[in-house]
């Protein structure tokens, strides 16, 4: 996975992702922000493909673009006056300052740490050994994560149960 084509692809993808991320911040319309967010997810998936970790790239697209983005869209549907122009808020200036400080910290950290770079072509992570790793060495965190997710799912359903559904169940 090296050569001219790959590095060209990397820079194009990097540009798209950064522009989309900026778009999420800058856009005045909530829906545009969400669409830019989806574009960033796809960009990140592109990076995984470049690292030839194709299972994770596909998982990224399915989970983030397929499920989480759709849920965010649902949330957008329910926020009143979602597509009004919410540009001129009093928090613009402090927000900008905070962003600059954070950017400075990140740049410093990135510059300062000594990244362990591996030479040669990064060998791909095939799905089968990912599966065996998940279910042999990392089985405990995997199970805990799934339990946590189901708890969250049940909690969400309990939260949004409307009064009449509760009344209905009380009767049954």
């Amino acid at each position, binding site marked *: 996975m090296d050569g*001219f084509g790959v590095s060209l692809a990397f820079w194009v993808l990097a540009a798209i992702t950064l522009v989309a991320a900026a778009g999420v911040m800058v856009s005045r319309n909530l*829906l545009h922000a969400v669409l830019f967010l989806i574009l960033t997810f796809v960009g990140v998936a592109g990076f995984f493909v470049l690292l030839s970790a*194709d*299972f994770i790239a596909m998982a990224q697209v*399915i989970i983030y673009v*397929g499920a989480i983005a759709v849920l965010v869209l649902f949330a957008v549907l329910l926020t009143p006056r979602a597509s009004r122009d919410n540009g001129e808020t009093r928090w613009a200036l402090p927000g900008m300052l905070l962003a600059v400080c954070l950017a400075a910290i990140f740049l410093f950290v990135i510059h300062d740490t000594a990244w362990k770079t591996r030479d040669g072509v990064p060998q791909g992570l095939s799905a089968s050994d990912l599966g065996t790793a998940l279910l042999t060495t990392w089985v405990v965190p995997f199970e805990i994560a799934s339990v946590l997710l189901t708890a969250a799912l049940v909690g969400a359903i309990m939260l949004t149960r409307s009064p009449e559904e509760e009344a209905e169940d009380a009767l049954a």
Partner: protein
Amino acid sequence: MTPFLVSDKWYDIRDLGNLSRALLDAADKVLPGGVVYVLAALIGFVASFLLFVLPSQLIIGVYGERRIIGRMQSRLGPNRVGPFGLLQPIADAIKLIQKEALTPAQADRVVMYIAPIIFVMPAVLLWAVIPFGENMVIADIPVSLMYFLAVSALPVIATFMAGWSSNNKYSLFGAMRIVSMAISYESPLVLALLGAVVMSGTISLSGMVAWADQYTIWMVFVQPLALVIYFICVSAELNRTPVDIAEAESEIVAGYLTEYSGMKWGLFYGMDIGYALAASGFAATVFLGGWTLFGLEKWVPGWMIFIGKTHLFYFLFIWTRGTLPRLRADQLMAFAWKFLLPLGVFNLLIVSTERMLWAEQDYAKGLIYVFALVNIVLSVGLVYAWARFNGYRPERSPTRPRLVKQAGGYIPVGERP
């Protein structure tokens, strides 16, 4: 994978992959460094699009669907334009192109313009991973099944964009419905395909085709329930008739497509059928054993067998569209969460136990047929038991009214008139 084909010569039409490889090798000697990749992608795209997507999708799909549904409704269907009406899709396309594409005043112009593009792009991307023959596949990536699921998530977002941006109450209804349906039908779809993956052991489509050929059995016999769930979920994702609530003509005029006209609408309409064909191509590869037909593919070219199976599956979509009425939105959600999801989980349970047993017998060839029979019986039993557990009794109410001789007042149900 045992070599199927007798000869690998470039003139062997049974597998056009050899032809393209010969072309690429010749070009590689001549052209500089990485350009061959671009050429390979180009050939792949042109070949797949021109040879398979365009004829099977536009001509057979649009024309075939309208003709077959016409015959179902005892009318002829398009037969005026060109011989037997074959040029009808092209006539439609030209008509739509020269039609004016309106954009409502308060509509979100940019998002409304991009929506059809986002809707069309995945339709062509889907064909990249589907194997038409031994090495006739553009991108034979090891995760092609997941690639298919990933790419089929994009049209949901495109339809939402179309629905939300056209600033019309009916479109908002359509957008709300498509989003809620996509979420509830995504999980049973993945579970159904997981059943197939567990049984065949790979998540690459060509791997599944090889498995089907190696054990000379189609996945549909081993996994009947998975195919049924897949069919229902895919017709939900694609808005096909028993589940086409996103653009339900009789309720919300045309759902998210209300404000679209001209070629923008044309793109949505054409690619709807494109997705249906891609989904049936995918089902043909996973469940009906792709381009292999128990050894017949040595004589008949593989990709012809594959197109036959795709249109066999596509006929199912046309058939349901021609006959079934439409379910209500909340009934659909309940059906997905309360019926399809648990069935998917049970199916997965059964399949993984069978896989364990099969592994102990180190994948004996005969055992798979036993599993097939067991699975068919189990599936029917499972569906019936879960429906009864869910409190569903088959409708025993009378389908004929009571007949009365004398005119009079109200006659309660029990009483004889």
